[in-house]
């Protein structure tokens, strides 16, 4: 009597599993999960979600526990791509179809893959730096996220790819690159502080894997009077980043419409749960097989579109008061003042 | 009975299934030196700890200056003016001599409202206290863990005698002392009643007990079995009482010692 065999498509279960990698990055709790849940319940499915604190071990337990709750399909945002393979294997053994979310998993057993391209996000940041600096030239600092976290690894890889020509020609020098356990902003602040000291303030850009790290970096730039002068990038376009963008201390943040992404993933998961085919043209080569791929476009948030972004995602994701509060009206971009009121 | 510093009625102490003490009934008058003698494991230390409040009794009554105490604590005992030299000394090994002596009662002076320790006054005070016992230590400033067995014991004794208490409980104070150091201590003990202090003395040196105390309670197998006047008791008798030879058990003391049960006045009715 293996209970596991009771799960899976066509068994009539109306439960979907959603295994996320972390909640400490606001987008997941505030945008992805609610949109996923709403879209699923619109189709009569209940969502059981788990998150893993960016910890591969915890994700293994999460998935094991989800699988033991008789789910019909699993949407998985793997903490670690490679470590995700075993999870897919487990799900397959339990006869539960699986949809990779946000993070590719190199397994041909995947039912599909909904993604933001993290490597592309890294390239986008470098492109923005190129534009801001008028050519890639000078000393760069890179603040990467949690060591081993695939998002951090991919974005950093994107930086390196895009910077390669400039690095090879010697025009750009990376004075410091560091991974920060727990994505700790204070740790990023220390890194940038020390790197500025070492480089005698001769730094033109700080590429950060997310907005929190960017926040830490900005503080040390401020202390040296370099904020607004050096290029700073981030990811997720949080309230904090929007504020820094308005103040000119951060030049851009990469944002993916996570609401759409969540809804899309829910639709696809329901289809998988019902045992339907979701193959639809685009595929992704995961080394060993092609899987159906549903890429989501990211957008770049800058001073130009920040008000629009806040308008769209406030209060669910960003807080206008945090973004625009206590900033002199003269500095506010048009339309921002109304949002604070 | 209101002049009794301490009085115990059918005191009992159980550690789980082990009864360390039962039916302990005794009293200590003001300015009296009373001995407690008994075999190893008889329950003397348990009794002393009950008096000093470091453990609580499980049955019976304990009265200080006529007032009953349900829950005793070391703080309460100190407030009642009870000091104790524990058999295990209870010194803080990481503190030095004078810090141990003044522990919990440090000398302070008020500097702008803040009470600041008077280190040198305590050092001098400790020095004087030790001199009363006729000794000198190589260093007052080193942790007591570096002292010899006897020296440690003297520190514990100084701590108990430093603050003019109403009652000093001494659990084997001379065990580690050399003869040369033991005599001054016994003399000190004899002087204590004159300073208003009663003493409860536990010692295996029966001669010391008999020469120092007015009365001696015999503790045997966890019971306070009898009480003798030391003036009329020989060491041999005391020993027999402690060991409980059959003829002693029946209340017929041998030799020159007399059990007060027979010779003393009848028990006064307790109010």
């Amino acid at each position, binding site marked *: 009597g293996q209970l596991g065999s009771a799960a899976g498509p066509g068994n009539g279960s109306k439960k979907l599993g959603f295994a996320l990698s972390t909640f400490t990055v606001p987008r997941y709790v505030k945008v992805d999960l609610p949109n996923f849940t709403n879209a699923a319940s619109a189709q009569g499915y209940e969502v059981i979600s788990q*998150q893993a604190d960016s910890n591969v071990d915890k994700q293994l337990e999460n998935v094991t*526990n989800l699988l033991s709750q008789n789910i019909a399909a699993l949407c998985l945002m793997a903490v670690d791509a490679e470590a995700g393979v075993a999870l897919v294997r487990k799900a397959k053994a339990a006869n539960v179809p699986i949809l990779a979310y946000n993070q590719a998993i190199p397994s041909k057993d995947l039912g599909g893959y909904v993604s933001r391209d993290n490597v592309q996000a890294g390239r986008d940041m470098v492109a923005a730096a190129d534009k801001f600096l008028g050519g890639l030239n000078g000393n760069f600092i890179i603040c990467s996220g949690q060591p081993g976290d695939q998002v951090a690894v991919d974005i950093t890889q994107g930086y390196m790819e895009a910077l390669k020509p400039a690095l090879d020609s010697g025009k750009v020098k990376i004075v410091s690159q560091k991974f920060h356990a727990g994505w700790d902003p204070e740790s990023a602040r220390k890194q940038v502080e020390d790197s500025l000291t070492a480089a005698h303030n001769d730094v033109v850009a700080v590429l950060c894997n997310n907005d929190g790290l960017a926040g830490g970096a900005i503080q040390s730039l401020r202390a040296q009077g370099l904020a607004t002068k050096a290029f700073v990038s981030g990811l997720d376009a949080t309230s904090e980043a929007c504020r820094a963008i308005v103040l000119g201390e951060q030049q851009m943040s990469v944002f993916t419409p996570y609401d759409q992404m969540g809804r899309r993933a829910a639709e696809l998961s329901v289809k998988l749960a019902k045992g339907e085919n979701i193959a639809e043209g685009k595929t992704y080569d995961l080394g060993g097989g092609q899987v159906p791929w549903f890429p989501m476009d990211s957008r770049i948030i800058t001073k130009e579109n920040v008000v629009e972004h806040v308008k769209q995602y406030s209060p669910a994701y960003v807080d206008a008061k945090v973004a625009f509060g206590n900033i002199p009206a003269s500095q506010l971009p048009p339309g921002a003042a109304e949002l604070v009121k | 009975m209101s002049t009794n510093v301490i009085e115990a009625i059918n005191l009992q102490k159980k550690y789980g299934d082990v009864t360390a003490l039962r039916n302990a009934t005794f009293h200590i008058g003001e300015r009296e030196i009373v001995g407690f003698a008994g075999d190893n494991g008889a329950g003397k230390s348990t009794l002393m700890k009950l008096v000093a409040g470091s453990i609580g009794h499980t049955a019976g009554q304990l009265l200080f200056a006529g007032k009953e105490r349900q829950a005793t604590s070391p703080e309460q005992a100190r407030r009642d003016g009870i000091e104790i030299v524990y058999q295990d000394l209870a010194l803080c090994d990481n503190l030095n001599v004078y810090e141990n002596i003044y522990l919990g009662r440090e000398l302070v002076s008020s500097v702008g409202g803040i009470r600041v320790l008077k280190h040198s006054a305590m050092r001098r005070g400790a020095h004087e206290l030790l001199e009363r016992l006729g000794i000198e230590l190589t260093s007052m400033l080193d942790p007591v863990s570096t002292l010899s067995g006897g020296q440690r014991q003297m520190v514990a004794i100084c701590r108990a005698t430093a603050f003019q208490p109403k009652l000093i409980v001494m659990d084997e104070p001379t065990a580690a002392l050399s003869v040369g150091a033991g005599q001054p201590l016994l003399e000190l003990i004899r002087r204590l009643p004159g300073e208003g202090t009663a003493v409860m003395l536990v010692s295996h040196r029966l001669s010391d007990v008999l020469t120092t105390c007015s009365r001696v309670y015999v503790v045997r197998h966890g019971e306070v079995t009898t009480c003798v006047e030391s003036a009329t008791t020989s060491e041999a008798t005391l020993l027999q009482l402690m060991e409980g030879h059959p003829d002693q058990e029946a209340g017929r003391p041998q030799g020159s010692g007399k059990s007060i049960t027979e010779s003393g006045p009848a028990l006064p009715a307790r109010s």
Partner: protein
Amino acid sequence: MSTSVDEPATAAGAPVTVRKDPRKLLTYSREAESTTWRLLALVAVIALVWVVFQQVTGGVFVTPRNLTNLSVQVSVTALVALGVTWLLVARQIDLSSGALIALIAVMIAQSEVIHGWGFGVTVAVAIGIGLFSGLVNGVLVTAVGIPAFIATLGAFSYLRGAGYLISDGSTVSGLGSTMFTLGNGGLSPLPSVILIFVLAAAVLVYRGRRMIADVRRSGFRASQLLSLVAICLGAFLALWAFGLYQGIPYPVLLVLVAVAVASFVASQTRFGRHIYAVGGNPEAARRTGIKTKRILVVLFVVAGLLTSIGALIQAARLDAGPPSTAELMEMAAISAAVIGGTSLFGGRGTIGGTMLGAFLTGSIANGLSLAGVNTFWQLVATGLLLVAAVATDRRTRKEGLL
């Protein structure tokens, strides 16, 4: 001098003729007795937690499948905590377990996937690293004289760094099938049931006989009966869970073996006694001629060995060697031991207690996860439950309720 003298009634009363101390002579150890009560209290707390979760999760918690999952989830912590318990008993600590697991997991993946070495070689490599790392810790503590906290905190950092360096920060997955089976397979249900049955019967017979002998000598003690009942219940649950699902998973089997060996060593060998002696009074142990330093080194090495077995399970379960694995494992292990009654100040601790401690924290994590509690609330609940569980445990024992 007061002349009125009290005389207890008894002395003048019935004469006592024996020289023997009439106070009860104990033929059992009150210390062991109180340890038993502590363990029973922990069992009760775990049972309580289970009942609550069974309600909250709508009956999913106590099912053969979830109990099997739970037992596997707990296994790595349990193995590590076993080694840590002995270190704590001997007044040491090990903060490097998590980092060591990560390094070994990385090396396992390297060995199996990159180098294509076989299962045997891989196991040898894993265990070799564990032993060596333990040896380094032991030597730093005993020969160099660095406090264990610092020596193993250093290892916490450099071992983790080594794991990242070797793997270049990325996970390698797809281990060999034998390794995969080690983490994900198990004994099939029938032999499992037989094994549990035989084991439980042996323990029950052994303890039952001792109980009967003790009852004859020193009377009936509830703790003994209750332990028997607890063992029966545990065996029954194991039979039910493993019998109805997939048998005893190999990780659990490894834990069982380790626990059996460790319990035997702790109570039946010289070495076991010496660990407790060193923890109770290191100076006294040294003065008795016990080679305290050697014992400490061995303990660090044993901790390394157990950790490496844990790493094998961890890698096998993940089917990969992620360098970030087993974060905070050292904390989990130490708390399992402390919850189980091990003192951070040495001399006190039992293997059974540690296992129950690991089971309690594991149950809380598993239950909260099953109940689908929001993560942030999960953090809060974990903390509160931990405190509440230990508080209940202490209270229960203090007030003799159990």
